[in-house]
Structures are given as C-alpha cells and as structure tokens.
C-alpha cells in the first residue's frame, strides 16, 4: 500500500467528528467550510489551499495563509 493507513484513518475521523459535533451531514460540513471561505475571502486575500476550518465541541477555528501548519 502506498499511503500509510493511519493517514486515511485520521482524515476519516476528522470528517466524522466535524459532522457529529455540529450535528450535520458531511455534505453540510463541506458547505459550511465553503461558505466560511467565501465570507473570509470578501475581506482578505486568501488561497483555498491555505484555508481550513477545525470544529471542536466549543469552537470553530479558521486557519488561513498556511498559519498553524
């Protein structure tokens, strides 16, 4: 196998927890990410590759411009 399975596990888990925590489908979580991207991009120059959101039980963190990477 070319990719270590642990990376697949972490990615799947991350998506599952986002939809569990905000109680929506993975698809809705995707749309939330897109909407947040569009909103932020109205006010600052951002690149989709450097934009990521992280949803915990208490907060939504927006990462951009490759920060925290």
């Amino acid at each position: 196998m070319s990719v270590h399975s642990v990376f697949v596990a972490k990615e799947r888990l991350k998506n599952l927890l986002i939809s569990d925590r905000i109680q929506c489908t993975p698809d809705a979580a995707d749309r939330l990410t897109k909407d947040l991207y569009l909103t932020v991009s109205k006010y600052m120059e951002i690149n989709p590759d450097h934009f990521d959101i992280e949803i915990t039980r208490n907060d939504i963190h927006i990462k951009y411009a490759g920060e925290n990477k």
Partner: protein
Amino acid sequence: MGEVIVITSGKGGVGKTTTTANIGIGLSRLGKKVMVIDTDLGLRNLDVVLGLENRIVYNIVDVIEGSCRLKQALIKDKRFPELYLLPSAQTKDKTSISPEQMKKLIEDIRDDFDFILLDCPAGIEQGFQNAIAGADRAIVVTTPEVSAIRDADRIIGLLEASGIRKNELLINRLRIDMVKRGDMMSVEDVTEILAIDLLGVIPDDEQVVIATNQGEPVVGEDGMAGSSYMNICRRLLGEEIPIEDYMKPEGFLEKISSFFHRS
C-alpha cells in the same frame, strides 16, 4: 468520603470491564478499600472477569428493590485486601433501575469506601445514564480505531453536558508495532483529537487475554499491560508518573532480556 469513578466508552468491546477489574484490584493492592459495581443490567460480565461468577447470590437490582441488604449482595474478593463486587442482574433490563435510585445507592455507601468504580454498559441510553448518575469523574476508554474514538468523542460531550468535568482518557490495546509502521493511530494522534487529559495507555498484551481466561488480574504482574495498569492506579492516587514511552527504540539490554524471556 470515597471517590466515585465511572468507566465508560460508548462503543462496546474496547475493554471497560477489564479496565474496571484491573484498576479495582490495583487500587486495593495499593491499600485502598474499593467497591466495583457492574451496572450493565442483563449482560453481567464484571463478575466473570474477576473470577467471582460462582459466588453471586443477590445483585444490584435486589438491593435497589429492597429484596436484600447491601451486605448480602456484596461479594468480598478474598484474594485481595479490600475489594468488593456488587454484581449486576442477568435477568433484568436497563429500566429496572433509575438514575435517581443509582445516585441514592452511591450516596448511601460512599462513606464506607475509598473508591467506587462503576463499570458502564456500552451505548448512550438509560444504562449509561444510570452509570454516570452518581459519578464524580470518568475514565473514557478507547482503542486507537476510528469507530471507538468517534464514540469516545460523543461520550465526552455527554459527560460534560451532565456536569461531569473531570474526564480522563485511557487508550487501550495500543499495537506498538503497527504504530511504528504507520498503520495505527499513535497516542499523540488520539489525544490531539480527543482533547481531554490522558490517564494512561495500555499496550496490546496477550497476557490480558490469558489472565481474563482464568479470571485473574494482570495489574501488578510482570509485563507491559500489568505495569501500565498499576501506573494508572498510582496516577489515580495523585502520584506524578509520566505516561510510558512505548515508541522509544528498543535498547541493547531490552533486546537481550526479551531474547532470554522468549521460550
């Protein structure tokens, strides 16, 4: 006044009962007076893991219904200094007890013990609500798998919503070889996702299966799981013991020693 700890996980089969048994025995070996309560109504198992299945006369439902006194239902494990089991009922279901009754039972007994450990059933229904009703703190057991971690995350949310704030994580059945080759999530991977304090890590160890087959504990015995469980007990008593580093490369002496232990 004793400390009441619920051992829970959401997902079944991750090692709640084995953990309850070994922490209970470990704490009693460290000189504490311990009561372990099986709250899984209808699927009684803690007695079997402890090797006490032949000594059950009354159970927790009998105590709550008033059909017997607590003392009649308690089983004293004679192998250890001060360890008592309150067994579950095999023929009743989860609705035979309410969270309020459970809370009252615990309030009635907590002055007589140093620790009361509650073995929680899988799931998030009434059995879970009963088990957490009287608890001060929780040990959330998970294995390094997507499904178990997902359920642990849900359980942590439910515990916090119920006002239980001291929740600690126990990662069970870590396969060191698989983590090293990138096929299992590491301790760091899991703790990054589940943002609660780590109480301990139990490496996958066939001694656990062998001991459980015989209704005996691993805690305090030679071997990785035995010493990890003992360290967890000491941490529960407030000792500062760092989490074992299972990822460090094997040193020369360990290699020689494991060579001679093979047979």
